[in-house]
């Protein structure tokens, strides 16, 4: 352990020696600089390590000059300041390395001196325990930063620097005033000493409140809170990113710690109010202002400011929020994780922004595809910043949300809204970056610091996850499973040298997990609703992975890892035992599937992500509403213990509705299904949307009965399901893209499942579960076939196809069976689901919903026919004359699924026997129907004999065929263009193929219903918000006087609210 004062002294000496002996040459200067930084880093690391290993138990108190605390100045190093020191020095060293590798345009020695002074000042600021000394260190830091900010010597950086100087001076004036007035008031400058003299009753009037406000207000300016942060944003935009990285990543955190510590020592009673007002407003405002930002550095600046706002909020709650026990600990870790996450990822982002050098966001187009390593670093940082699991930001946010007391629910809501806004703009940026573009990518400088940062960040993420699972006491099984997911997908990435190897590995891993689940009952103890979905996920996944290999050549190397990740996180969802675990895996699934969709359509993926975020955070808010009292983690079965409002249920259900694509939340689905990689779409439709069903079942069974108005909610849900089923089917018939037709069809079918769930009777669940499996079978089949067809023909545009039955007979057979199943025509498996659902609806007398549901299935025939006709029938085009049957894996999957539909159609027990068990595990005694004889199923209203129908259909078909051969016409197979065409000979297949806009007449009848009202409403909301933001962000005029004016106004505002007691 090193005496902290040595750090300061050595740094100071080094700084001056560089200044004096710079004539000794560059090597000397750099040598001294690096030696100092390394020494400081090692020293502070040793202290931190001491704290970490509990070798040092108490905070270190250094008495300078041997005077005891109240008289002499002293340093005080506790755990937090040591850790923060490590971070500051790490970031500082990285920034310095980065800067040197880029080449310093200022004379080097000066810059290094300033850097050292900056590090020195911030260290001192963190360590000191004397108010005036604090002021001195703040000034050292500030002056060094003024210089560094100006170091680019262009008009941008000089302007930023000058603004900083003026506002910084005002701020330090307040700090100084506060400090000396404090001295006048308390007769001491030592923090601990002052703290001992103060009690909160002194705040009830008089000087102390003014003094504290002065002092804290000065620090608040430095903390870039909302109305007074224009200068900070200008620095982010204008200054050298290396400097900005160290400022945002390290120094501001020092100010933050100082602020909290001072407030703590001053026992400032209004910290919570101040924190909520300024933290929250800073967070929300900056997240929204960033939307319209075109300059990438300023965008990061907004994000930084927002994060600081969140930190202030968290700190205020930690110190002053009446948190106890768990909550306090959670909040502490939330703060720590926020700090670490922001330091490492934001500094990486600034490094990368500097390396690439382009400012405007559009110029970043295609960066991800041009340099893989760069892309990886950028993606990781952005994901962590935006709070994507399993990165650090996610755990921080989760801790934060869990820790906030329930009576401050509005804060949870606002923070989550801010988080959605954050995702909105970060991934708008990501969308631009990940677009495909050819070209050369070059950057000047070293990528090593970013690499270091990201590795630390990854390590910290693992630590964060570990800490989260340990602290919250969640079942450790889930934590292990999370680790397993991560490790396995990384393994697929690392070990998969080629696509083939990745394919085999993915198959092996999913298969192994499936084998494990079947063999080992620890994951799924008895057959219940959860194991039903585990089997569903694994069975679907293994088939769809199997089908992807022929398509995989055009996918990037992360396709299979992400695929495995998505699949396993869905397994995680299915086996999770409480709401929080469910949420974690849910987010894992959303994000990984977002990244997968992003391999295809960028805009679509963005919309998907935003909608997922709305759903996911809605769920988190709902969970927050559920959790009461000491039991912060609500588990499924204990939900009954909570008397909660209906909003909790509705909010939680939002997430599931989004994934199911239910009507007003469906806007992501068409494009996400249509443009995601073809190999992934079957999983998206067949399995991923079923996770919504799973969640829906959980909510309805465990949660809804305990809510008020649960009947109304269920009836409303049924209406949502029915309208979704109808309108999505209507929209599907006018799509001209095979995957988009299937997309709408998918949503429509899931609407049926939702009706089944909302019935909440055993027959309803039977219908829902049956249809869940059945939808997996036939929609998987259709999407796999569509993927193969797109692979073979190179287009997904329906009018471009036609006549492919001649080239792909097996696919046609499978597709036909899929379509018959989709249409619900007996004897294939689709009918059973319909029959069960209608019986259930009849039983419950929901006549109107029954009417709409049945009618929707009639409408579905239209797109069913459209798909069959435009792809397979009609005229074969010349360009597809040499097209082959689909690749073997796809055909195998198709035929297996087609066989399944037939088998299930004749013997529905194949699925029903499972769903019966699952339903019994939900507490129902019977599945809602009965077997009258071996094959005849009877409900209260009707009956149906699947086996007979199958035999009858096949039998009479054969009889008709035999009869046909009795008629003795001589049949000749003619060519495709030999049609009765008024005596003309058609000149090309295209001229006689009817494939475009099949339902033009229907469009004229239903024009009102298919107008994209919902989508336009979303667009309108988004656009008007955008316009609003674009207008209001002019708040930051760029004028120094205005910035100063806002400082004064804010100060008056604070005095006003604290004196008047408003708020």
């Amino acid at each position: 352990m090193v005496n902290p004062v040595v750090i300061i002294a050595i740094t100071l000496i080094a700084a001056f020696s560089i200044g004096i002996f710079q004539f000794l040459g560059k090597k000397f200067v750099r040598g001294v600089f690096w030696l100092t930084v390394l020494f400081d880093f090692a020293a502070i690391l040793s202290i931190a390590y001491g704290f970490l290993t509990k070798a040092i138990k108490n905070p270190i108190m250094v008495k300078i000059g041997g005077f005891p605390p109240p008289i002499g100045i002293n340093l005080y190093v506790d755990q937090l300041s040591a850790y923060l020191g490590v971070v500051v020095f790490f970031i500082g060293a990285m920034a310095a390395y980065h800067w040197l590798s880029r080449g310093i345009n200022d004379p080097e020695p000066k810059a290094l001196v300033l850097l050292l002074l900056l590090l020195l000042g911030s260290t001192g600021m963190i360590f000191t325990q004397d108010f005036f000394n604090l002021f001195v260190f703040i000034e050292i830091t500030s002056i060094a930063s003024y210089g560094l900010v100006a170091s680019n010597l262009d008009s941008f950086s000089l302007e930023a620097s000058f603004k900083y100087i003026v506002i910084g001076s005002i701020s330090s004036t307040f700090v100084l005033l506060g400090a000396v007035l404090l001295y006048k008031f308390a007769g001491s400058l030592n923090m601990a000493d002052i703290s001992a003299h103060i009690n909160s009753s002194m705040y009830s009037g008089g000087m102390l409140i003014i003094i504290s406000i002065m002092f804290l207000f000065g620090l608040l300016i430095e903390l870039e809170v909302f109305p007074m942060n224009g200068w900070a944003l200008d620095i982010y935009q204008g200054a050298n990113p290396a400097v900005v990285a160290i400022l945002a990543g390290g120094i501001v955190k020092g100010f933050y710690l100082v602020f909290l510590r001072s407030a703590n020592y001053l026992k400032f009673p209004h910290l919570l109010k101040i924190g909520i007002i300024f933290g929250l407003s800073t967070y929300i405002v900056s997240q929204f202002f960033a939307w319209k930002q075109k300059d990438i550095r300023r965008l990061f600046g907004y994000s930084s400011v927002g994060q600081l706002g969140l930190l202030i909020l968290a700190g205020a709650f930690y110190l002053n929020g009446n948190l106890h026990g768990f909550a306090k600990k959670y909040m502490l870790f939330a703060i720590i994780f926020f700090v670490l996450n922001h330091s490492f990822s934001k500094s990486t982002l600034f490094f990368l922004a500097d390396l690439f050098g382009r400012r405007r966001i559009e110029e970043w187009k295609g960066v991800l595809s041009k340099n893989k390593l760069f892309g990886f670093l950028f993606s990781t940082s952005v994901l962590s910043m935006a709070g994507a699991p399993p990165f650090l930001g996610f755990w921080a946010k989760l801790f934060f949300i869990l820790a906030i007391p329930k009576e401050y629910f509005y804060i949870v809501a606002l923070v989550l809204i801010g988080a959605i806004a954050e995702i909105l703009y970060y991934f708008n940026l990501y969308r631009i970056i990940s677009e495909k573009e050819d070209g050369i990518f070059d950057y000047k400088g070293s990528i090593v610091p970013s690499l270091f940062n990201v590795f630390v960040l990854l390590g910290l993420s693992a630590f964060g996850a570990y800490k989260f699972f340990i602290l919250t006491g969640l079942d450790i099984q889930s934590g292990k499973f999370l680790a397993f997911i991560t490790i396995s997908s990384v393994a697929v990435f690392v070990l998969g040298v080629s696509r083939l190897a990745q394919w085999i590995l993915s198959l092996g891993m999913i298969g192994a997990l499936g084998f494990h689940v079947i063999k080992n009952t620890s994951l799924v103890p008895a057959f219940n609703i959860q194991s039903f979905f585990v089997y569903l996920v694994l069975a679907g996944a293994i088939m769809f992975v199997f089908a992807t290999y022929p398509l995989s050549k055009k996918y990037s190397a992360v396709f299979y890892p992400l695929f495995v990740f998505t699949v396993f996180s869905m397994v995680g969802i299915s086996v999770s035992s409480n709401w929080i675990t469910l949420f974690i895996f849910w987010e894992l699934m959303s994000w990984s599937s977002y990244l997968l969709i992003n391999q295809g359509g960028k805009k679509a993926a963005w919309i998907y992500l935003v909608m997922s975020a709305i759903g996911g955070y809605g769920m988190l808010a709902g969970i927050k509403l559920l959790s009461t009292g000491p039991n912060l983690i609500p588990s499924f079965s204990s939900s009954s213990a909570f008397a909660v409002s209906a909003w909790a249920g509705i909010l939680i259900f939002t997430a599931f509705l989004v994934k199911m694509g239910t009507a007003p939340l469906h806007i992501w689905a068409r494009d996400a299904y249509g443009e995601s990689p073809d190999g992934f779409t079957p999983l998206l439709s067949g399995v991923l949307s079923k996770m919504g069903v799973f969640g829906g079942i959980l909510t309805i069974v465990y949660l809804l009965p305990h809510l008020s108005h649960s009947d109304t909610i269920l009836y409303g849900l049924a209406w949502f399901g029915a309208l979704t089923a109808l309108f999505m089917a209507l929209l599907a018939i006018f799509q001209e893209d095979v995957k988009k037709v299937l997309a709408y069809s998918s949503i429509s079918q899931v609407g049926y499942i939702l009706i089944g769930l909302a019935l909440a009777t055993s027959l309803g669940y039977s219908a829902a579960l049956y249809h869940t499996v059945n939808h997996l079978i036939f929609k998987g089949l259709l999407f796999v076939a569509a993927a193969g067809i797109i692979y073979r023909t190179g287009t997904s545009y329906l009018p471009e196809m036609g006549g492919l039955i001649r080239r792909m007979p097996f696919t046609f057979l499978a597709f036909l069976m899929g379509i018959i199943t989709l249409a619900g025509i007996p004897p294939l498996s689709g009918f059973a689901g319909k029959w069960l659902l209608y019986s259930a609806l009849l039983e419950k007398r929901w006549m109107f919903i029954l009417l709409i549901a049945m009618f929707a299935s009639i409408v579905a025939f239209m797109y069913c026919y459209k798909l069959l006709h435009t792809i397979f029938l009609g005229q074969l085009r010349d360009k597809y004359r040499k097209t082959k049957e689909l690749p073997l894996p796809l055909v195998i999957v198709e035929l297996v699924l087609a066989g399944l539909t037939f088998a299930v159609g004749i013997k529905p027990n194949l699925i029903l026997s499972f769903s019966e068990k699952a339903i019994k595990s939900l507490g129902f005694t019977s599945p809602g129907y009965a077997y009258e004889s071996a094959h005849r199923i009877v409900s209260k209203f009707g009956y149906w004999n699947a086996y007979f129908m199958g035999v009858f259909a096949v039998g009479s078909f054969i009889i008709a065929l035999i009869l046909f051969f009795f008629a003795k016409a001589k049949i000749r197979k003619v060519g495709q263009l030999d049609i009765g065409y008024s005596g003309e000979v058609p000149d090309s297949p295209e001229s006689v193929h009817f494939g475009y806009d099949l339902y033009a007449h229907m469009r004229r009848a239903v024009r009102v219903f298919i107008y994209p009202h919902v989508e336009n409403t979303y667009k309108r909301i988004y656009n008007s918000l955008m316009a609003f933001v674009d207008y209001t962000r002019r708040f930051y005029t760029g004028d120094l006087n205005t910035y100063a004016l806002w400082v004064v106004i804010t100060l008056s505002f604070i005095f006003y609210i604290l004196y008047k007691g408003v708020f």
Partner: protein
Amino acid sequence: MKEKDYFLDDRPKKLSYSEVWEKFFNWARAQSLWVIAYGTGCGSIEIPPMVTSRFDAERFGVSTVGTPRQADVLIISGYLAVKTLKRVIRVYEQMQSPKYVVGLGACTVNGGMYYDSYNTVNLVDLYIPIDVYVAGCMPRPEAILAGFAQLMKKIKEGRADGWKQYIDNLDKYRKNQEKIIKNWKIPNYNW
């Protein structure tokens, strides 16, 4: 698959069938004549009166269809030019056997008043087998009905075998057709 196989290549085979029930079926064929009217000339105006209320051909089982695939009778209603002859041949070939052709008007017999026109086919039976000619310029619907009666009679007697002759003497017909149709763009053998 071949580069282009819009049309069939192999020649239709000669039909052979047992004659056991033929008489009964010929009766049925005669009683159910589905007509595709090829409106080549002025005779096409006589078809609508024939099938509507005044002359009511439907009482004899004669009704109209819109597609050659389902038709039994092809009515060539008037003069044929080379251009229309091509289409007539195609329509005729697309009809399913047994099939019959009725030629309306003098033009189909020998060119009629256009016997010296540069663009009127004078002798239609050189190109497709005609079962019944109805003379006149133009024949009235009564005459056409009489022609149909004639056709029915021939069918019942089994004498309306133009379709058989066409297949049997396909080469001869083709030669004649190709003689006047210079640019032979019709696909061979595609019915």
